[in-house]
């Protein structure tokens, strides 16, 4: 196998040319294998499961076509979970992006001890969601937690165990806290790649900091923001399972039961694998649709 590198005919193109098809194929093979084993295979399995009704141990199996989907779409609880998921995701994405951006802008200035601030701001990302959740529960547990007590002393009847709005605030807070660092990191990198000269030119033209931010910095950050919107949406849809499980278990009265938590609950506690698989297929379709929508419409506003 010969590997040749050429300068493409006079153009400033730098491209590796491989002889034959075997080598490139071999090079992408590991990645393909991983996708097949860890994505396509389980996804197909879920698709197949969603057409079956089965007992927990898999002893009796019945092929039922779309029955799992039909019964799912005829339960009000499912639509409730869709509503909860969109509300939850919207809150998480908006707050974690806004706070991440604010912190990044603040940390992008020349202030003493900058490295220390930056490091501390990144650390929360290293905390596992379930652990973050456990810590927050200690602080927000009515009657025991520090923050819960101060809230109660301030006259707020803080009770996430029974009050659905409070429970939602609690899981959103944990999810946002856990995700801010990630957004901070990307926004900071994005900010640092914006040429200083552009901002200085605007300053000379008399633009005040707020105006400079909204007319120059924010538009130039849009590729980062767009990327983060997609990543954060996926995070809110899927990765918050551990947070919800530890903090509220989807309660009270399913006020924090998101779609992914319902998949987990029905499959694990309910041992209803068919129904759970049907839900995960629908969830996959929703997220693919949402991402496609973002690429189609939101990306148009992005300046690369």
């Amino acid at each position, binding site marked *: 196998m010969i590997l040749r590198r050429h300068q493409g005919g006079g153009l400033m193109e730098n491209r590796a040319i491989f002889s034959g098809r075997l080598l490139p194929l071999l090079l992408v093979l590991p990645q393909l294998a991983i996708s097949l084993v860890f994505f396509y295979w389980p996804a197909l399995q879920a698709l197949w499961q969603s057409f079956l009704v089965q007992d927990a141990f898999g002893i009796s199996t*019945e092929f039922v076509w779309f029955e799992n989907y039909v019964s799912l779409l005829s339960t009000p609880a499912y639509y409730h979970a869709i509503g909860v998921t969109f509300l939850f995701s919207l809150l998480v994405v908006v707050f974690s992006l806004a706070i991440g951006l604010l912190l990044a802008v603040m940390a992008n200035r020349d202030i003493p001890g900058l490295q220390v601030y930056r490091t501390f701001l990144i650390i929360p990302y290293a905390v596992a969601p379930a652990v973050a959740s456990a810590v927050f529960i200690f602080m927000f547990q009515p009657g025991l937690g520090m923050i819960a007590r101060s809230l109660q002393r301030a006259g707020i009847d803080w009770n996430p165990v029974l009050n*659905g709005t409070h429970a939602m605030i609690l899981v959103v807070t944990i999810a946002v806290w856990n995700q801010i660092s990630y957004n901070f990191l990307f926004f900071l990198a994005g900010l640092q790649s914006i040429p200083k000269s552009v901002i200085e030119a605007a300053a000379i033209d008399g633009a005040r900091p707020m105006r400079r931010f909204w007319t120059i910095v924010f538009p130039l950050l849009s590729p980062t923001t767009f990327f983060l919107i997609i990543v954060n949406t996926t995070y809110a849809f899927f990765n918050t399972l551990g947070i919800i499980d530890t903090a509220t278990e989807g309660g009270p009265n399913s006020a924090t039961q998101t779609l992914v938590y319902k998949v987990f609950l029905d499959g694990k506690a309910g*041992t209803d694998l068919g129904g759970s698989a049907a839900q995960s297929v629908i969830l996959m379709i929703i997220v693919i649709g949402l991402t496609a929508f973002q690429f189609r419409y939101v990306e148009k506003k992005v300046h690369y």
Partner: protein
Amino acid sequence: MSLRQFGAPALGAASFAFAAASPAHAVTEIQWWHAMSGPNNDVVVKLANDFNASQSDYKIVPSFKGSYADTLNAGIAAFRAGNAPGIMQVFEVGTATMMAAKGAIKPVFELMKEQGEKFDPNSYLPAITGYYSTAKGDMLSFPFNSSSMVMWVNLDALQKAGIAAPPKTWPEVFDDAKKLHATSPTCGLSTSWITWALVEQFNAWHNLPIGTKANGLDGFDTVLEFNSPLEVKLLENLVELQKDKSFDYSGRTNTGEGRFTSGECPLYLSSSAFYPNVKANAKFNYTAVAMPYFPDVKDAPQNSIIGGASLWVMGGKSAEEYKGIAKFFTFLSDTDRQVYLHEQSGYLPITKAAYEKTKSSGFYEKNPILEVPLKELTNKPPTENSRGLRFGGMVQMRDVWSEEIEAALAGKKSAKEALDTAVSRGNQMLRQFERTAGK
């Protein structure tokens, strides 16, 4: 395979020592998956070690698999992969799931008969084994750790509020909760395991059916019916008390137990197995009394039901393994061992002999709290409403019932509406379960 090896490293070392001691001898290993953490894990390990030391043919290897639900799921996944353990500890609400899985399990009565072990079903406490037996009385799984529900009472708080003695009936409990509100403004009364308290135990204690077909013990075609006027009355009262926190909801599991030991909630319904925790953490005079009842109900109090877990034997194992498991169950049933377990862990003894022996030794005079659940369980011979319950999908069913109770307590639905919905949603789940069960 990897799951087994992940088990407990310490035990791996122990097994090595064991193998080295008798190299020529073929030892049959029996995997025991369980959900006991902390001091109870030590009890499990000690039992296994004692059994292993008592003979040289079999070796019980316990592995901790997480919470009850985790252990059940690990067992199901292992079975699907053809790798199930010999013995699996399953919580009481998983009973229907297990017994419906014919072929996946080996009923204990069958195992003991086949292996010729001495086994007299009548030597066990019926209030405990009834939960794990068929309608005919055949024992399906072996009771391991059992408890019942009692009412924990903070005596100091009662005195402060001017209440002379712990309340016995629900009307007294409601009154006392209101009085306690003056000194405990955030919580007069609360519970752990809300559905266990308000539905499962409450109905057994009042001889009311939770569902038809003897609460599902007689068949999977059972229909829920716990929305009768009495259950509605109880919930309505609690909803009323919730408004000023004379009653305050503490969640679906036992995470609220700290509210009793911290002194916040002076009246607290929870498991009798809460005892070691209370003993270690409560800095006030406390006691446990029988659950309250409505005195205008003819049969109340009837008898309480158990909670906890039992040991299931999995199907498709070798004759050698079954022999070892049968011997292990005989070993566990030993009177002195049961007495020891009962006194150490606070869980209930499973044989009549062990109960009698503990009683005659005067143990309960020094530890009256440990006898409260036993008195509740044996208060009257169990009826078909109070032998236990067996509903498919019970793990998730509890969540569904809890959701509806939460809606009522939060004032979003009336008590009647909430219980009606809990029943109808539960029935849907039962019908779903019935389709695949026992085939």
